[in-house]
């Protein structure tokens, strides 16, 4: 556990100068592409994500996948070959990417009101431009923004956040790549922040069961914080779009 000490210094600062419960800077923009029905760009620290949404449209490809009572959410996660320190051999198809795709679909399906679109499909494409830790949560957040931009009905936002445990005691929020390498467990939570419900949870490495509660609470707190940041972005985007048509000024 000697390595773990470095995660949080004595005065409570992390490697990149953040406090334990501080998020990395999130910058985001909706409607970055013209072609897709919805798109978004999100920066969380140095992690940069592009997301595009198409649909709902008729089920393409394998027709038998269509469901009679809900829309099929199709997610594709890929990492640009230049996104990591070592050049990646292929952008998708390995087990980790497939896993992220599956998890992304799970989180988004929980948030989208799929029952409104039977026999149809919603495509979500996510591309990582720069990976610097917390890829999955950043993807979920970017995809949420893209879904909002596409005007797909959502139950509420779905936000994701990571949390870790420093010095075997202090929970930390929003883990960067550096902190991931040093070690320490990572708990990823995707939640509907308003109702506080968890739609996906995942963890790696190990820590004692007793710590789970506080780490989980910290991660949920992070989801709520992210929701506020996204809210702002959506609000300004709506006003932007509205100002061009003129209706935003009438209110």
């Amino acid at each position, binding site marked *: 556990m000697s390595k773990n000490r470095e995660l949080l210094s004595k005065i409570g600062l992390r490697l990149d100068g953040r406090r334990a419960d501080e998020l990395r800077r999130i910058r985001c923009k909706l409607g970055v592409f013209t072609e897709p029905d919805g798109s978004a760009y999100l920066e969380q620290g140095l992690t940069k994500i592009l997301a595009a949404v198409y649909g709902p449209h008729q089920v393409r490809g394998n027709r038998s996948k269509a469901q009679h009572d809900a829309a099929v959410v199709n997610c594709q996660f890929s990492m640009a070959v230049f996104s990591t320190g070592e050049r990646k051999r292929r952008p998708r198809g390995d087990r980790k990417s497939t896993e992220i795709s599956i998890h992304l679909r799970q989180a988004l399906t929980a948030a989208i009101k799929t029952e409104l679109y039977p026999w149809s499909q919603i495509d979500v494409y996510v591309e990582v431009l720069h990976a610097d830790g917390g890829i999955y949560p950043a993807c979920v957040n970017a995809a949420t923004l893209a879904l909002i931009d596409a005007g797909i009905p959502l139950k509420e936002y779905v936000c994701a956040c990571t949390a870790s445990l420093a010095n075997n005691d202090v929970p930390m929020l929003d883990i960067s790549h550096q902190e991931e390498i040093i070690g320490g467990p990572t708990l990823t939570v995707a939640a509907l922040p308003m109702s506080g419900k968890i739609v996906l949870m995942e963890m790696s490495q*190990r820590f004692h069961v007793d710590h789970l509660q506080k780490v989980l609470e910290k991660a949920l707190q992070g989801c709520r914080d992210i929701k506020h940041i996204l809210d702002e972005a959506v609000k300004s985007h709506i006003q932007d779009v509205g100002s061009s048509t003129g209706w935003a000024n009438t209110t």
Partner: protein
Amino acid sequence: MSRIRETVITNCERKFLMKCLSDWTRLDGRSFDEFRPLRVEFGKDWGSCYVSLGKTRVLAQTSCEIQQPKSSRPSEGILNINIELNPLAAPHFEPGRQSELSVRLNRLLEKCVKDSKAVDLESLCIKTNEKVWALRVDINVINHEGNILDCASIAMLASLAHFRRPDVTCDGEEFIIHSYQQRDPIPTVIHHYPVCITYSIFNGGEFVVADPSLTEEGSADATLTIGLNGFKELCGLHLGGKAELMPHVILNTVTKATHRANIVIEEIKTSIKIDNEARTKKLPLGFHTERKGGANSDVSEISLHHWQEIKKSKKKKNKQKPVEPTESPQIKVIGEGLAVHVPQEKPDRQESWIVDSSDDDLMIVEKPREQILLHDSDSEEENVIILDSSQRND
């Protein structure tokens, strides 16, 4: 032949399951926190392990070879985990293709064992930057009756713990791998034993059911898999499915799982100990030694037992004696380690195809008018052939 698909879970199965759960019972008579019987057996080879959890069966085999280490970790051995879902286990598994399920299972097992650093990889190093042992665990699912993951994780761990690699010595430049006869093989160093424990969650967290069966798995809202070791440390956690859960449900379930993890780890350790004792005593090894009797004999007793239990609770009468299955199939021992399953001949009962009209008011079966259903020349297989036995010349 058309593509074989996963059987649909019917609405009535779903509804009935929910009704059962609200009565606090389960389809197979278990309580909510009860797991199916677990059995861990070892084969003749080191690292060959067979685990059955109820009717779910998994075979794991650990093997090793010498490889060059990864450049990022020059002094660490390599551990590969591969789970194979072949059509042997369930008709909708496709051979050779990475399905979503197999990716998910694989990643969870990797997280459970690799990320939690359960295996001491540094001890697998032979020479830094040149040669390390690469361990590979192949997990084959033989029968899928729900909860493959628990079964696979137990099999993987037992196989790793049981496995021994040959000793290697170095004289200058040459590496010599000693055979098992020359030098005692070396066991793998395992720091802690992480096992996966799976729960199915129904109705947004109202019902949490341990060790789900196939039907339960299919109709559950979500599955919560918890990786735990003997020191109550979480070694991986996964919540999948479409449920929206409140955090306290997860925390409660994790607390419940700690108890189970200890039992499972204890079971793995004792079965390894028993196997080791058998090896030192030079008893016959292998899978056939433990199983006596046919595959069905144990199953029949279980179901009978459960049935009686239900009867008792219903009627609140305790006077019935355990019924000896007098007409049950017999098992004849042919030779060492071999037995046959001989069904009892039942000459008194004539097997009839014909559904005759009857006075039975219980059956709501439509009574077919035709007495013989054999006259069906357009059926797929059951052709009727009229054999003319009269010779031409008479």
